[in-house]
């Protein structure tokens, strides 16, 4: 039995779905940030999978490499925001801050 590219893509899309569901349904900032991480990882899988089937260069993997770097930066800033928000409203619930409404 051989693992074709389809399986990897399927796996990646499942993971992405789970991450999206997490981001949309959970009302806890931290969980949302983590589900973003899951989504980013699923993208990495897809990139690496495609690169595997074009192995003449490392574009896919280099891109995945950069995605990881940016994910790190994004997590850092996200958590900083969560902390300052937490300091203001003593909770990490996402629905509380709605000052920017119409």
């Amino acid at each position, binding site marked *: 039995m051989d693992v074709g590219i389809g399986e990897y893509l399927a796996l990646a899309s499942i993971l992405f779905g789970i991450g*999206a569901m997490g*981001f*949309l349904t959970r*009302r806890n900032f931290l969980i949302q940030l983590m589900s973003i991480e899951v989504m980013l990882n699923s993208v990495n899988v897809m990139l690496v999978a495609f690169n595997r089937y074009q192995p003449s260069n490392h574009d896919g993997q280099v891109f995945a490499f950069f995605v990881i770097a940016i994910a790190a930066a994004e997590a850092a800033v996200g958590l900083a925001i969560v902390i300052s928000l937490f300091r203001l409203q003593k909770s990490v619930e*996402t*629905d509380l801050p*709605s000052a*920017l*409404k*119409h």
Partner: protein
Amino acid sequence: MLDSFPADRALLLIVLFPLVGAIALGLASRLGANRSAVRFVAVGSVFASFVTALFCFAKLYVMKDGDLGGEAVISRQLWEWFHVTVPGFGQTSVDVRFSMDSLSGLMTLVVTGIGGLIHLYALSYMEEEDDAGYARFFTYLNLFTASMLILVLASNLVVMFVGWEGVGLCSYLLIGYKYQYTKYAKAGKKAFIANRVGDLGVIIGMFTLLAATGSFEFAEINAAAPGLKNMGFTFGGETPFFSFATIACGFLFLGCTGKSAQIPLYVWLPDAMAGPTPVSALIHAATMVTSGIYLCCRLSPVFLQSTTVMATIAIIGSVTALVAATIAVVQKEMKKILAYSTVSQLGFMFAAVGVGAFTAGFFHVFTHAFFKACLFLGAGSVMHAIGSHTDANIFKLGGLRHKLKTTHWTFLVSCLAIAGTPFFSGFFSKDEILLGAASVALPHLTEGQTTEGLLLQPWTGWFVLITLFVAATMTAFYMFRMYFLAFWGEEYRSAHGGDHHDQEHGHTHNDGHHDDHHDNGGYEPAEHAYAAKPHESPVLMTFPLQVLGVGAVIVGFLGLPHLLPGGIHLPNLWGEWMSASIASIGDSFPALHASEEHMSPIYVAMTFGLLAWAIGVGAAYQAYANATIDEDLAAKNMDHITAKLGAPVHTFLFDKWRVDEAYDFAILKPIRGLAQLSANIDQSFVDTLLTRFTAWGARGVGWVFTRLQTGVVHFYGFVFILGAAALSWWFLYPHPSLEVRSQEGARVTVEAGTGLGYEYQFDMDSDGQPEGEFGSANTQSFAYDADDHVGFVMNIGTLRGDPEQIPLFRSEQQIDTDLLGVSWQRELAEGEDESALNVPPVVWVTQESKLAIRPNGALVRGGQLGDDGYMTFAPGDVARIGRVPVQFHPVVRATVEVRNAFGHTRKYSEEFVLDGGSRATARLQLTGAPQEVAR
């Protein structure tokens, strides 16, 4: 016309003197000048103008050299004011022109003569005004004289209108001279607006005359007058409903009623008594109010053309006379009585005009100017004597004949004149009017002649005669009632009343600005008792009285009746002099003119006149010669005779038939309400409709979009994901498109739209078998042959823009004619009827795929007319249907199939015309057609 040199220069001076005087006095009143200078300028200017007027009048007399009725006009043109184009008459210029003929000559003499005397009188009457006020008064008086002279000397309607409104303005200023009292200011405003309503009539009348005769000049209008009878505004119908004459004269008469205070618009005159007495004398007796009659006399030829207007004038005139007389009888104040007497006398004059006796009417104007001015000045001198500045209540007077000697005899003489005592001026002028009325009532009919041809029917004559008779008796009665109550009787009824003012030796006539005790907040001057010992007025006031008194007597002899019972002929200077410029009814309707063999009207007129005088004076003597006034009746404004009328009738008459209240209720209140309504509507409805609604609308739409900003991160995330999904759907399926790159004859190169990872497969002739495999090349060229044609198309070149394209089929099909422009039909062949041409041409495609056209009604060129009646064209040939070029081309279809990275494929097909690259625009529903056409 004899334009003698110095006379026309003099004509200008007549007007310039008072005008310059007015301007000088105006500056004086503002910049301060000593009183004597003001006196000199005020009277000097009018007197100088009087002398010049005499000079011109004499010049006129000389020009007539003996024949009094001869044509003689002095005229002077200054500059062209503006010009007007009248359809049918071209461009007529309206220029500032003055002219004096016999009518305006006399009128100028009246204005400057009597005006001058009144100026003299006013010098001392207004003595106690402060310097500025004194000068201001005489500025207005001079300005008034100037405007009146402009009105009289104008040679065309527009310049006359300048004077007409100028006089209105001056009466506004003069009535409101004591502007610190709101009542007087309101009276002034009322006068101005009532005149303005009249002026509306004059304007419309002017325009009608302009439309009918093409000019404003009096001379030209009178010349064209006979023609006005049958011309008129035809609102659609042929025969004019109203002739020009009727419309013009009707509106002009409306103007005259405004200015000369006749029935509908007379309400302003009684209130105008608010002005100082010289003003009432000058304006409301001698000059301004007579301008209405002057206008009618000036345009007498036009008035003679319209029966309806003459009849209305006659009726309104006599009714006004009667109504005013009834009101005058019950009044208790001298100036009020004189005011209503003026309205009544004007009614007499208009009645005269109405029955065609223009010269008689104007003669009454002349005599009335003398005795009415004398009466007003007499009343003024009485008021001066008793120290009252508002009015003299006759119930509080009595026995003045001993103390005011000259005022008494001049007042008596004028009363006799107005009452119509024989040999006094009033008798002659009134007799002439009655004669005019009688000669209409008893037309001198030759046998067989019926009355309907005449201008006026006898019943008008009788109506005027009787009403005037009653009015005349009443005139005599109320004049002598006033005379006896004021001057006769033994004791001076307010001898005791005024004593507390004695210590100021009786001069209490400083205007009320410091005794405000009960002038109800400045609305009107304070009422206070009369001086105990009245004394005669200074000589400056009595001298004009004497002159006018003498005038009131002798002036009547100018217009002696030309025929006396018993066939005696008397020299009628007035009639001859006026015949030069006033038309008389006798010329056009001899039946309405009394002559030797038709003496009856003269007898009737004479008897009515004498009878009226006798009854009136007798009754007044009987009732009031040495009557005593009892206090409580006086309190109710009644004396023992008028009390007999009974309270309701008396108050009805005393309150001027409640006409003012009726006007307020019927006209002013509704218009004011309408104004208030429109102001509110403007603020609320119109404003809201345009501004508020749009504002609300904009804000509403804005509100809808703000709902999107919920502030919840989730929501934004969700919208974000939604967008991403939609975008991805776009990439899921390929979106093919096809363009014609180039076309040489049948070989066509097409190009498909590119996309990410697209692969293309062409099937150029859409027969189901693609020519090649899926490849990345997106262009393909192909040579089409006859059997690839999927259909045919016809290009119709329209007049502009790109050509119209219609599909062609094997079956016959009519061309829509409005595509073919305007001129597509061919000439009518012989033997054909008209309808054949309306059959539009028919086109279809033959088996050998050629275009076939059956012309039917159309003119078709450029093809070969076959035997079976239709022309054939090869693809690309140009045919011409009418002026429109027509071309016929085959249509082919190419398809392309595109596959994208996901492996989904889409097919796309495009039809185009093999004629050099234009895309098939017509909806070619050819999918169903190929089988039928192609193979």
